[in-house]
């Protein structure tokens, strides 16, 4: 038994010191040397190093292998493994690990790092898909195509696993685009969101907040402006707020956030060209001196109570509201919008947090002015400013 162990260790290590091979058997050095010297040249002493360290090398791996097998008593294993229980990994475990990796990919420092993390996550996803579908393709040949997989997978797995896998594959696909800098067409993005919308309640139940959040980050990143200088500051403020508010909504209403995502994409998606949204615009004059307007939503919080208005539609979720207003209301909103617009256009600081900060500054000024008409404006303005500042700190 000890001869076999020494020879087996030697065969595995190939080139080794006496100390190394001793780790794999119980024999003293003199016995090990004796075994190694009696292999008819299959193992030879390569050199003696300082401090008495001997280094050996396997010269004839096949010959050594035959000796190992010859030392083995027939039918007896060298060492019956103590615990042969196979570890079974459930789909859920592998999917959760893949998700951890996809989320980590979002925090990665360099593109190399993120690329390796993505490849790791995709390998795990492929193995789940391969083990879910009927035997056919080996896992490494599985194409993680969200549309094709969706059709196949739904036949072979339960709703919870299907939901999880569908989302994970979408996130992996978007991550790949993000890494390579390839933009995703707005139509593809909206189709992706619409594929996942029916699964919202299941996504919510499974508490997949991390990877759901990552999905939103990736979709929203696709509609972030490419070049800040080509879009006017007021329009950039609006798109920044729209993106951040949809992202923030994920934390308290996944259903609401999902519903807001398609209008967001349609309004500010890259394929539709840069939408130079203004802070205020009259859409139509209405009977009775009223107006149908579209206005930056937060300005409505600065209206004195006596100025009447009625919300009509959400033009850009979290940023632009269509409303029907009285003439005085409309004039007041126009003044506020102009003041904010001037401040934004004059500001030398173009980052999104800076734009939001400018808006907060103007809001304070407008609230002071408006407090003379209605003292509740200050508290409404404070609440709005608080929310804006937290949005400024959030990732776009």
């Amino acid at each position, binding site marked *: 038994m000890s001869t076999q162990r020494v020879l087996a260790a030697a065969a595995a290590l190939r*080139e080794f010191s006496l100390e190394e091979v001793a780790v794999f058997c119980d024999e003293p050095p003199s016995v090990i040397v004796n075994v190694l010297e009696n292999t008819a040249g299959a193992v030879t002493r390569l050199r003696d190093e300082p401090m008495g360290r001997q280094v050996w090398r396997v010269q004839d791996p096949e010959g050594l292998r035959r000796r190992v097998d010859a030392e083995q008593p027939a039918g007896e294993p060298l060492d019956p493994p103590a615990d042969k229980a196979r*570890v079974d990994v459930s789909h859920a475990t592998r999917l959760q690990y893949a998700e951890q990796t996809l989320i980590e990919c979002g925090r990665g420092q360099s593109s190399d790092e993120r690329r390796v993390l993505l490849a790791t996550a995709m390998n*795990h996803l492929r193995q789940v898909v391969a083990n879910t579908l009927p035997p056919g393709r080996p896992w490494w040949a599985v194409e993680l195509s969200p549309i094709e997989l969706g059709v196949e997978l739904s036949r072979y797995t339960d709703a919870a696993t299907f939901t999880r896998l569908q989302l994970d594959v979408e996130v992996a696909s978007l991550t790949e685009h993000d890494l390579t800098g390839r933009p995703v067409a707005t139509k593809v993005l909206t189709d992706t969101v619409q594929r996942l919308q029916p699964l919202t309640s299941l996504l919510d139940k499974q508490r997949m907040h991390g990877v759901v959040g990552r999905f939103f980050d990736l979709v929203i990143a696709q509609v972030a402006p490419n070049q800040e200088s080509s879009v006017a500051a007021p329009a950039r403020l609006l798109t920044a707020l729209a993106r951040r508010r949809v992202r923030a909504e994920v934390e308290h209403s996944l259903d609401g956030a999902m519903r807001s995502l398609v209008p967001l994409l349609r309004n500010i998606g890259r394929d539709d060209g840069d939408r130079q949204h203004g802070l205020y615009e009259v859409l139509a004059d209405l009977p009775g001196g009223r107006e149908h307007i579209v206005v930056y939503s937060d300005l409505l919080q600065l209206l004195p109570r006596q100025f009447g208005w009625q919300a009509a539609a959400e033009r850009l979720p979290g940023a632009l509201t269509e409303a029907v207003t009285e003439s005085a209301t409309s004039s007041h909103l126009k003044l506020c919008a102009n003041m904010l617009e001037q401040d934004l256009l004059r500001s030398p600081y173009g980052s999104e947090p800076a734009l939001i900060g400018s808006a907060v500054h103007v809001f304070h000024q407008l609230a002071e002015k408006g407090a003379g008409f209605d003292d509740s404006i200050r508290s409404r303005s404070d609440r709005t400013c608080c929310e804006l500042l937290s949005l400024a700190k959030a990732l776009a």
Partner: protein
Amino acid sequence: MRGATPPYADLEPRIWRNLLARAAIYHATRTRLSVLCDMVRQPGAVQGAFNDLEIQVMECAAEDVDDETTVSRVVAAWDRALAEKLGLKQLDEAARRLLEELQVLARCASGKDPIHQIFTGVTSLASALYGSYWRPPTLVVSHIRSHPRGALLPTDPYAVSARTPWPGQNDKSAVELLVFCDAFGPAAYAAVPILFIHECVCHVAARQDQVKNDSAFAEGLLDWAAYFFLDMWAGRIDSGLSGAARTHARELRHVLTRRTDTPEGRARQLGHRAAETLLSWFEETYGYGSHDAALRVSILAVKLNQVERPLREKDHFVSRLGAPLPPDLEKVLKGWSENRLDAEALLVAPVPA
């Protein structure tokens, strides 16, 4: 004689005496530890005797005396308690036999630190395994105020854990044993060898860029190798403890791999599964027996641990160990097996463009 300063700076003297007294008794009775662990779970005289031991340990540890005196007082007090139990007329034969054996063995307990003895045995072997990559560690023992996994003792009696703080570029390291002293029972003591082996095989000599508790390589594949080495080294570390050490290493593995509700638990399960896939590959490709195949998986894990590459690349390698293995990976594995390629070649994998 006044108490000496504990050998571990993070331990208060009373806590140290508590831990030492327990460890000394478990060390002295280690050849019967497996039976003791089984019988302690059932209500009866053995459980009662174990409770007596705990009471005596708490009492004696409260007195500010030196280590040898603490242990001898605990031994004497427990001896009297065992004698009382052995005087019971309704004691069943198995319990009587065990209590008699424990009484004899416990009288050999001394104030020498058995935990450090185990540590020395493990580090000596791990040092030979890693050669020049080894970073000699010091042992730190710390007291924690609750079970490391927040578990209930009967289902998870392993009130002990270990970690290796990230050494960075240093050529020395430390291994920290975290002990919930009040619940440090015989099963936890028997698990100390595998905890030290895990830290030494997986982390002490690791060449990587970060610490990641959810690494399928560091906590999974290498952990699997640590169990292989435990089986191999248990007799050399302490032949008397080897049976209990192997049994409780397996039990602890079941406890830890069951926990797929944590990132660490998932990483462990995935890494173990990957190791088994690789094991099967060696068996099928080369016709090796299971020991030889396991030897090669463990050697490969150790060699990869020595490669100075980011941990995420090693995790990526583990992610490729799904059956069947990809053809390009098989080719490189054969190259490594046949000594044509270094282990590092396994980390150079095509990644999506």
